[in-house]
């Protein structure tokens, strides 16, 4: 551990991040055990002198963004991977001197994917830490509750950038003007999934969802998409946020068995969705089970394939179809994905030990859809900060964002923003599992046939 922290300090990019966090008593307390007295003294005094020069999250050498996300609990994989992806890019920017001479620092707080801590963390970020902007939040129930704070402090021009949620509240009035999104919305994801299921004759679509704002957002998207075909949902069941993989979801499966849907769309996080997939296939509900991008595909796949009690992991994964809002991280023909691949190897970002729990083991993924999204978020954020010029102010942020027109992030899609368009990307990608990893789903008819065959065999 000692070595780890010393290494961190010897790396100039990491040091910047630690420096930004060093003011927190937790970090100082942890650091006191692990660092030499001289190193700690130097780090604190640097931070204090830097802090005294901060104006709205900007100093001569740093620009501080605030993040509240799930770094602990059953959905911690989402927060950790999103952070790692972003850091892969920011570390590279910082190692080259930052943006207009300022290194990008993230001030992190853990909310465990719970709304109340998210609100408290955001208040701290706005009032105490006075960060430049909010960046990389995770989850609908958390972000939905945070949005009114942005309105409350609108005079201070705080904006939320690229939250890891496709819900509507930050895409429409009254809170839409306080956020910018990169990813496609849940409406687009659920709409696409339903559209494709209906096209292949699977018109009886059921919805399994988290009993909260996130689940409701996806549920509403499915309902809307079905209504376009004069169809209604065939069965719906819910689960409580925070449900672990070890939980039994047989009640929900039995409920669906009554209605006999042709396909199920899950609006949930990986632990519960993996448990549902397991219980559904075991219970004879052998139909395609789709998940949205938020699920954390790799985490889900890991759960259903790593379980020692599962003899044939593929029997679960063969029914899995996940929508994504970024292209496959294996598609190295895309320049942006290539860069992501290179930076993830070169910078090898680790989980943020300052906010994760030692009691919860977490093994990071070399590559994942979530970290790729974090990477693209960071790339676009860096572009915005660059466009803000050498004297960045919160007041100038919107103008800088709106100056982005047809920006190529290297994923085959361009990004544009204006007053009426505060979401960068619209494309939804579909993936299935082959040979233990997610691959693009290109032919829905063929996939539907294989689901039918798998069920009959």
């Amino acid at each position: 551990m000692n070595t780890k922290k010393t290494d961190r300090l010897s790396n100039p990019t990491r040091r910047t991040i630690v420096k930004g966090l060093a003011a927190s008593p937790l970090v100082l307390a942890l650091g006191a055990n692990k660092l030499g007295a001289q190193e700690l003294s130097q780090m604190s005094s640097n931070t204090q002198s830097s802090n005294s020069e901060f104006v709205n999250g900007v100093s001569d050498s740093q620009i501080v963004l605030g993040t509240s996300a799930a770094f602990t609990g059953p959905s911690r994989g989402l927060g950790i991977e999103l952070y790692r992806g972003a850091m892969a890019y920011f570390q590279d920017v910082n190692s080259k001197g930052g943006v207009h001479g300022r290194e990008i620092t993230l001030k992190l707080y853990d909310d465990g994917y719970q709304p109340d801590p998210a609100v408290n963390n955001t208040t701290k970020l706005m009032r105490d830490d006075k960060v430049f902007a909010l960046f990389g939040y995770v989850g609908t129930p958390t972000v939905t509750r945070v949005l009114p704070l942005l309105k409350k402090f609108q005079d201070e021009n705080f904006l939320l950038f690229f939250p890891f949620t496709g819900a509507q509240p930050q895409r429409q009035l009254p809170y839409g003007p306080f956020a910018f999104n990169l990813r496609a919305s849940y409406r687009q994801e659920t709409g696409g999934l339903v559209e494709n299921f209906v096209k292949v004759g699977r018109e009886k679509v059921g919805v399994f969802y988290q009993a909260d704002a996130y689940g409701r957002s996806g549920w509403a998207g499915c309902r809307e998409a079905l209504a376009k075909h004069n169809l209604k949902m065939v069965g719906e069941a819910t689960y409580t946020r925070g449900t672990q993989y070890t939980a039994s979801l047989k009640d929900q499966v039995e409920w669906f068995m009554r209605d006999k849907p042709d396909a199920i769309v899950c609006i949930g996080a990986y632990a519960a969705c993996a448990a549902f997939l397991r219980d559904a296939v075991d219970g004879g509900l052998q139909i395609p089970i789709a998940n949205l991008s938020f699920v954390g595909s790799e985490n889900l796949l890991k759960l259903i394939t790593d379980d020692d009690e599962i003899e044939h992991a593929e029997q679960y994964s063969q029914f899995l179809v996940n929508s994504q809002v970024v292209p496959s991280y294996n598609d190295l023909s895309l320049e942006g994905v290539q860069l992501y691949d290179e930076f993830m190897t070169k910078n090898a970002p680790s989980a943020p030990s300052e906010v994760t729990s030692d009691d919860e083991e977490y093994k990071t993924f070399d590559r994942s859809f979530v970290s790729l999204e974090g990477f693209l978020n960071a790339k676009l954020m860096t572009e915005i900060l660059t466009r803000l010029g050498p004297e960045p102010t919160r007041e100038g942020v919107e103008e800088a964002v709106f100056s982005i027109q047809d920006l190529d992030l290297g994923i085959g899609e361009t990004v544009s923003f204006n007053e009426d368009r505060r979401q960068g990307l619209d494309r939804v990608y579909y993936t299935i599992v082959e040979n233990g990893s997610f691959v693009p789903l290109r032919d829905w008819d063929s996939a539907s046939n294989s689901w039918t065959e798998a069920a009959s065999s």
Partner: protein
Amino acid sequence: MMKITRLFQWTIFGIIGLFGVIGFTNAVVTITAIDQDLTREARENSQDIAKAIADGNVDILLNNDLSTLQSRIDQMLSLLGSNGYIYITDENDEIIAHTFVPHIPEQISTGEITGDIIERTLKGKGDFIEVSHPILAGVGGNVHIGVDQGDVSLMIQGAMGNQVWPLAITFLVAIVLGILLVNLAARPIQQLLHYAVALAKKESVDEPHNEKLLERKDEAGDLARLYQYFALVADPNRSGIDAK
């Protein structure tokens, strides 16, 4: 063990009975009042919550922002106890947001939704009081709030416990005090009895407690002096009697 004088046994039983009747009547009246008050309060709270949701989220409903609506009802759910529920129906009585896990109970998804206040039994969940409040006079749908009658009963039992314990303790203290007071009243009669027996057996009565008895100004003292008189009349030569 506290001994009850035979003379006052029925008096004691009467006092206990009287206290019992008073305590029981008091408890029944209090419990009935608590039951009615808390049941009414639970209904009124539910109606207030339903009204707050219905009136405070009209814009959200009109914008069809169901995730924010869900977030609002999730926040309210904690006010309804461990097993309460909230669901919102649109103008076509279709449920557009709810808090049920693992699914919407069949009685609700298939049943007709009628009345401002109804009582329901949901399979596997219990008995509920369900109140409704219209959104935009009903054209925007309705908010429905379910409060578990088990939770209300527990609350009532808790309040009753708070009332019954003091009553029971008062009852017991009153009985003990009653017995003590009766025994206190019976003590001169017991002394008188012992004095009379001693006179009859011609035993020595020259004792300090007998002196005190003979000096009493009440009926016990009068009777003691009368027995003394009879004893002297019967045996004028009897010694050890200081005639009063």
